[in-house]
């Protein structure tokens, strides 16, 4: 156990720190690594390759041998299903031992139970009677280094390693490696002096600047380091630090073409919008810390295995309480204190039943989620992500798949045990709105990268929705599958852009003959994202498994909560729109006739260094959802092993008493599975058909449609007027306030300063005239004048007449004698 822990932490720490080493090396020596830092790219790629190798060693060499996945054979028997995402269900029990043995009972009784007891049930009440919850997953937690301790606040660099951490390491390092290789080809323009066609200088020339190849890889390395840091962090404070590092790296990379106005604006936008979310995150962290007194996720154990310091999760979900979420006594006290302080009238009233501590828990959960909203581009902070397309395409691929936006979803997943049902409902609604809004905007976009960007936002909405509805495995599963196919899609779009030198789909068309590898790998990506597969029985593309899991969870939730039916239908509608716009994109780009013959003629397939990553990622996009043949290994089984403590049981809202977050395993019930599976398949197929009809068979004319739905089109074309809305609500008032303050500055403060300066100047003038000129100058001039006059007078004495001198001597003698005698007499 101990050797496992030390091996794991060492391996992952190396994987984590290698990109940092690369970053530091390139930072200091990048300029000298070949012309324009050519070898910096190799260095960064090599570092990432090593990281990937270490991550996979950690996964397959250390983790899986020590914590084998439960065998599927037993499972398939029991449920009669061969969808891999199911199989871990009853067998998580295999290693955390006792907890899940009663699970099948829970499954069956959960539904009626939840309905019947929902309004009066406390966690203790309902769960104590009926079913056991799942124990914490196997995890390793420890401190590498203590930065400092301030009272009870301990800031450490710590690790929290469980299956999710290792899986994320593998996913991030794999995709980042592909992106690095891809970027080696894509960024070759930066290897010589680069003329930026989009920046016109004041003299009408295009901007010419030296290439910045090495700097790109420097930022990429830092980016990967930061993302690994977020994943391996063992406490919230450390997460926050790396969270911000991810933010600053995205700022650097989005603004890589800093001379382009749009790029610098987009970088600023991404950074500022993220700060809004981080503000909420800080509030959440403060709420947690003030009530729990710790940031740590896991329990710190001493050498004998006794718990020394309890982490967040074990405080909130105690074993005595059957791992149900229960605010701690300190939380209840804190909330009560805040309540009595803020409402002074109620101070001496007896504490009423104010959902002891639940509100505080809700604030903490929503606060943390705010950070995730910013980072994962959820409504209403989704506006930065499409603009982030200004960065180079490899960056987009990395940001949209493995790093930046994944960080938000990952944090929700990591923090899952601390979210109360109400917080989860907020998450679900945010995800729902996001997925719908972004999907609709993607329909009208013509910039190939923007379509993909909005699809990312939409898919992130899916993930949040799944997590919010209680589908932890479904959400995280979709995170990983989406990372692969979205990375693939972006790199394909980059390849297209590389080939035709434009982002605009209206100038493309028929490109599959020119760039077949790109076209067909992208087709794989599109099929994966719409969740193509044979309904119910599989097999399908990776998206098929994860998206179906989400839709099943949504149906399960919907059947439990009739009030929130919109959450049930949104993913279905989303699936339709997703299918439509993805294939609209593919058809417009690769099928039909070229719309711009000139561009078509110059198009070419990308070099092998770019297409190889595409092929690799296409393979993963196809198969990441599958179970590895002849083993028990599959992504969903891994995630099932990582299932956070206490999330297997149905939970009930405390503040909203009728809210039920269903058990995720309920969603695999055959009835729900059938209905959801067919609904997903049919809507996706309908979307695909519609797109085919419009863009391939030309049965409907898109222009005509645009004309007839003009208000709707312009509504969507302008992205629901979000940017304009924010401009009016936030930016313009901010500018007005700023201008007012500027005017205040210029008018009042400056005039005060100028007045003070003028008074000072006047005083000094007076002093100059009165004192300096008369007294000081007078003294100096007077001394000089007296000396001068004395000199003139002495000059007269100095006649040069010898005899006169003798007279003077005599006079002197006489005077001396007289004086002496006089003095003698007086004394």
């Amino acid at each position, binding site marked *: 156990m101990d050797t496992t822990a030390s091996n794991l932490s060492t391996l992952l720490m190396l994987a984590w720190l290698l990109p940092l080493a690369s970053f530091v090396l390139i930072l200091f020596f990048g300029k000298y690594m070949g012309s324009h830092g050519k070898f910096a790219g190799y260095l960064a790629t090599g570092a990432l390759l090593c990281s990937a190798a270490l991550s996979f060693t950690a996964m397959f060499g250390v983790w899986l041998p020590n914590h084998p996945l439960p065998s599927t054979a037993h499972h398939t028997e029991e449920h009669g299903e061969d969808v891999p995402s199911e199989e871990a269900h009853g067998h998580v029990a295999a290693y955390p031992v006792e907890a899940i043995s009663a699970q099948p009972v829970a499954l069956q009784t959960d539904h009626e139970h939840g309905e019947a007891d929902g309004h009066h049930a406390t966690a203790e009440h309902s769960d104590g009677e009926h079913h056991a919850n799942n124990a914490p997953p196997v995890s390793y937690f420890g401190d590498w280094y203590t930065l400092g301790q301030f009272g009870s606040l301990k800031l450490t660099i710590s690790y929290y390693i469980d299956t999710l951490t290792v899986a994320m390491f593998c996913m991030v390092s794999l995709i980042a490696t592909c992106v690095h290789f891809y970027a080696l080809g894509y960024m070759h323009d930066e290897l010589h002096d680069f003329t930026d066609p989009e920046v016109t200088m004041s003299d009408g020339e295009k901007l010419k600047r030296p290439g910045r190849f090495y700097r790109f890889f420097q930022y990429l390395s830092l980016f990967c380091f930061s993302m690994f840091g977020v994943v391996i962090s063992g406490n919230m404070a450390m997460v926050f630090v790396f969270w911000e590092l991810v933010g600053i790296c995205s700022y650097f990379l989005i603004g890589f073409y800093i001379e382009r106005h749009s790029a610098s604006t987009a970088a600023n936008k991404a950074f500022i919008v993220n700060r809004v979310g981080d503000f909420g995150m800080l509030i959440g962290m403060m709420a947690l810390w003030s009530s729990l007194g710790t940031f740590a996720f896991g329990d710190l154990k001493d050498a004998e295995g006794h718990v020394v310091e309890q982490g967040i999760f074990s405080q909130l979900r105690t074993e005595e309480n059957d791992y149900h979420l229960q605010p701690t006594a300190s939380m209840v006290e804190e909330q009560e204190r805040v309540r009595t302080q803020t409402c002074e009238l109620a101070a001496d009233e007896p504490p009423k039943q104010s959902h002891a501590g639940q509100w505080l828990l809700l604030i903490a959960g929503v606060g943390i989620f705010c950070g995730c909203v910013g980072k994962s581009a959820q409504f209403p902070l989704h506006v930065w992500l499409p603009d982030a397309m200004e960065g180079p395409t490899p960056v987009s691929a990395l940001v949209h798949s493995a790093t930046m936006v994944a960080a938000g979803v990952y944090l929700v997943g990591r923090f899952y045990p601390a979210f109360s049902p109400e917080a989860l409902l907020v998450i679900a609604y945010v995800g729902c709105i996001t997925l719908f809004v972004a999907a609709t905007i993607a329909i009208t976009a013509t910039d190939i990268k923007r379509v993909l960007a909005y699809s990312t936002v939409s898919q992130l909405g899916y993930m949040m929705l799944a997590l919010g509805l209680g589908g932890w495995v479904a959400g995280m599963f979709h995170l990983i599958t989406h990372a692969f196919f979205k990375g693939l899609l972006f790199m394909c779009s980059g390849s297209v852009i590389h080939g035709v030198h434009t982002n605009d789909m209206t100038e493309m068309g028929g490109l599959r003959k020119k760039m077949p590898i790109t076209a067909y790998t992208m087709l794989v990506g599109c099929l994966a994202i719409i969740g193509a597969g044979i309904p119910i029985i599989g097999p399908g593309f990776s998206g098929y498994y994860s998206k179906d899991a989400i839709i099943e969870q949504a149906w399960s939730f919907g059947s439990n909560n009739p009030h929130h039916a919109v959450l049930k239908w949104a993913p279905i509608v989303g699936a339709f729109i997703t299918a439509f716009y993805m294939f609209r994109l593919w058809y417009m780009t690769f099928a039909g006739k070229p719309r711009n013959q000139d561009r078509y003629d110059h198009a070419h397939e990308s070099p092998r260094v770019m297409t190889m990553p595409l092929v690799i990622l296409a393979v993963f996009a196809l198969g990441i959802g599958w179970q590895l043949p002849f083993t028990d290994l599959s992504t969903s089984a891994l995630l099932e092993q990582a299932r956070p403590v206490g999330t297997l049981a149905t939970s009930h809202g405390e503040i909203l008493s009728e809210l039920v977050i269903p058990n995720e395993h309920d969603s695999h019930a055959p009835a729900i599975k059938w209905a959801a599976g067919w609904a997903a398949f049919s809507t996706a197929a309908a979307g695909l058909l519609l797109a085919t009809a419009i863009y391939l068979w030309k049965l409907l004319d898109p222009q005509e449609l645009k004309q007839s739905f003009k208000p709707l089109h312009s509504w969507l074309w302008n992205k629901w007027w979000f940017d304009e809305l924010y401009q009016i609500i936030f930016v313009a008032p901010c500018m007005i306030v700023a201008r007012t303050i500027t005017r205040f500055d210029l008018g009042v403060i400056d005039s005060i300063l100028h007045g003070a300066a003028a008074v000072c100047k006047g005083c000094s003038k007076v002093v100059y005239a009165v004192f300096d000129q008369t007294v000081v100058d007078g003294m100096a001039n007077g001394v000089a004048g007296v000396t001068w006059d004395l000199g003139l007078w*002495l*000059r*007269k*004495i*100095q*006649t*040069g*007449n*010898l*005899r006169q001198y*003798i*007279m003077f001597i*005599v006079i002197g003698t006489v005077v001396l004698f007289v004086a002496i005698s006089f003095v003698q007499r007086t004394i």
Partner: protein
Amino acid sequence: MIHLPLAHLLSEPVGVSHYVMVGAVLFTCGVLCMATKRNALGVLMGIELVLNGANLNFIAFGSHVLRNDANSLGLDGQLISMFVIVLAAAEAAVALAIALNYYNNHDSIDVDRADELLG
């Protein structure tokens, strides 16, 4: 002792103060000589007179005849006056050389015309 009767003027021995008075007269005459003579050689003669007046004082202070007590300068007075005489001779030689030079350069011996040092 001015009220000494004239009768005793020649019968009493003279003292140091008489010599000093004669020296004072010589000295004053020398100084006035320097101050009034326009001839450079006249000035030199004044200097000789001044030196002689001083010399006379030294002799008087060192004389046992005039004042035979322990406070007399004794032989030192005569030695010093010897040096003075010797140095006066040297001075006279140099001064004469200067005067001749001056005369050759200015074609004059009038010290009033030697006013190049006029400020």
